[in-house]
């Protein structure tokens, strides 16, 4: 039995499941909106396993799990407890917070248990600290952009003198927010942006700056167990996408074509992914006009369909192959 943990709206999960069905492989899918009831979690000399029950009464016993795909999302456990009603509100709140904290640790334990299976990623590695990842990339011998976090204009100015034009981006996550406008809800996302030094105030919220790379093109690489599926994105020609290709131009989309990574870069990326304990992930790089490969980040739960479809890489099928217990 193959276990898939995912979010309920993920298209890629459905595509992989079609291949699992085609190969006649048994699977079970849990998504973040499914509250599970814990039947047992056992840890002894012989085994580390658990059994949970879904709302429809199906039992998932990890002893029967041959492979585990952490696609995205998280496990959700039913909270069941009754507090004595003589407790005052304040004490009740303290108890509730405590119970929730205990449950969160318990959920962590389940994730640890799943991580011991033959697996494609884990919950623990779903959201890696970007600073940590850049540091590991540097250790693996990859070039990274000079990166500064500061609140002070003077520090920023000094860094700009040394590194030329800068971009700013989120320290960890961009924000996605929705505004109610005349036409209904409009979604806004923040992108990596060029920095206009003239409008930087003396003191500001800690902000991450990186040297602006002179891009020839960008790379989006899907890594799967030491195999690389790379797409080159020609985003630099279009003003809209020149700094961040995710600021899509839907009318005339950026050219996206298959690309073969140099062996030397593959070796370094493999080392990085192993040090991050990732079996798969979407890696972003930039190739500069001087042909220097610069590592930007890795997203363990990224949308790989945007690489698979334009390059005809059949990644859904390849993931299904990886999950097959007897390939």
């Amino acid at each position, binding site marked *: 039995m193959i276990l898939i943990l995912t979010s309920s709206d993920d298209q890629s999960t459905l595509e992989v499941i*079609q*291949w699992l*069905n*085609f190969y006649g492989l048994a699977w079970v899918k849990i998504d973040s909106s499914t509250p599970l009831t814990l039947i047992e979690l056992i840890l002894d000399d012989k085994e580390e396993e658990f059994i949970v029950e879904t709302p429809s009464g199906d039992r998932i016993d990890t002893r029967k799990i041959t492979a585990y795909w952490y696609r995205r999302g998280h496990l959700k456990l039913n909270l069941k407890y009754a507090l004595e009603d003589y407790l005052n509100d304040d004490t009740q709140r303290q108890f509730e917070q405590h119970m929730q904290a205990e449950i969160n640790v318990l959920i962590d334990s389940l994730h640890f248990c799943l991580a011991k299976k033959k697996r494609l990623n884990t919950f623990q590695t779903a959201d890696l600290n970007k600073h940590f990842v850049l540091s590991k990339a540097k250790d693996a011998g990859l070039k990274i952009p000079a990166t500064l976090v500061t609140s002070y204009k003077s520090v920023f100015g000094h860094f700009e003198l040394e590194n030329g034009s800068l971009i700013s981006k989120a320290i960890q996550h961009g924000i996605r927010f929705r505004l109610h406008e005349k036409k209904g809800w409009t979604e806004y996302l923040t992108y990596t942006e060029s920095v206009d030094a003239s409008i930087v105030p003396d003191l500001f919220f800690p902000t991450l700056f990186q040297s602006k790379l002179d891009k020839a093109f960008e790379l989006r690489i899907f890594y799967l167990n030491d195999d690389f599926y790379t797409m*080159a994105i*020609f985003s630099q*020609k279009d003003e809209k996408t020149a700094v961040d290709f995710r600021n899509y131009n839907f009318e*005339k*989309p950026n*050219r*996206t*074509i*298959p*690309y*073969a*990574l*140099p062996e030397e870069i593959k070796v370094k990326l493999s080392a990085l992914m192993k040090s991050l304990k990732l079996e798969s992930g979407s890696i972003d790089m930039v*190739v500069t006009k001087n*042909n220097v490969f610069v590592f930007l980040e890795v997203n363990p739960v990224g949308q790989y369909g945007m690489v698979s*479809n*334009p*390059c*005809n*890489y*059949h990644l*859904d*099928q390849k993931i*299904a192959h990886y999950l097959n217990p007897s390939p």
Partner: protein
Amino acid sequence: MEQKYFKLFANCIPVKGASRSIICDLQRRDYQLIPNSLFDLLMSFPLFTITELIDAYGENERETLIEYVSFLEEHEFGGWLNDHSAFQPLDLTWFKPSEITNSIIDWNKDSDFEFEPIFNELNDLNCQYLQLRFFDHFKKVRLEELLTSLDRSSILSIEIFFHDSLEFTTNDFQRLLRRFPRITRLIVHSAKENRYFNDPEHFLDLIALNYTTQKITDEAHCGEVHSGYFSCNIDHFTEAKQFNTCLNKKISIDKKGQICNCPSMTQKFGKIGDATLNATLINEEFTTKWSTNKDQIETCKDCEFRYICSDCRAYTEGNLPLSKPAKCNYDPYKGEWN
């Protein structure tokens, strides 16, 4: 700095025809006509600099060559690259996790088969596209029952040809489209007038309700081939390279309940109920038609549109298995639509 060479992008693929060629832009889903001389140039020079071209074709051709290159640049069919060997060709394989990807079921008032068992079989085969063609009036309650039974099936997209009926107002049809998001096209035939509705309340504003005065009372309306049916994308292109773009992984039920590749084809494979879809798939006579690709079909094999075009094996010129579709009026030798 290395010398930069021009190279076509891997998803912009030239296809040569008898009198002219096209470049299929599989990413932007578009194509452009080009003269065969440009096609030949691109084959002879997979990488080039303008100087190299002028050296090869002569100074007299300079203007034409520069015009060709700026055409390629303007459409972003290629780029000037210094690291060209890393830009690999596109993988042109086609495969799908389904025994059957598409199906047609025809119905008229004399039909005596049940839909649901067929739906169940199609679901087991992981069929994704279904076309239902009702040649006569069909009851509203029954239609809703049928569509409800597909709610949790493998079918992702349902196209319906429906006989106009007093039982359905435009509102009813639109409600149907909203209730059953799997319906991607609803064509109401034998209507009083040609009308077209976009439903602003539907979550996909592409989904349209189409009334046509055309009377679709049997399968003979099918098999037309023209440029409106072209699909220039990776999925279609790669399938067309290997397989028949109409019949591949298709199974149909005609109005008499007979299993067939397509209802318009005369060869039948037994009546549903007596025979199963699954058993039919073992029959090589049934599946062999799947691999009749355009490169094997007379005239089509010389046509520049062969990998973006649809096909028809039921109505062919002179009724021959490998002649061009009878309902195609393009002549690739003259480059003209008749």
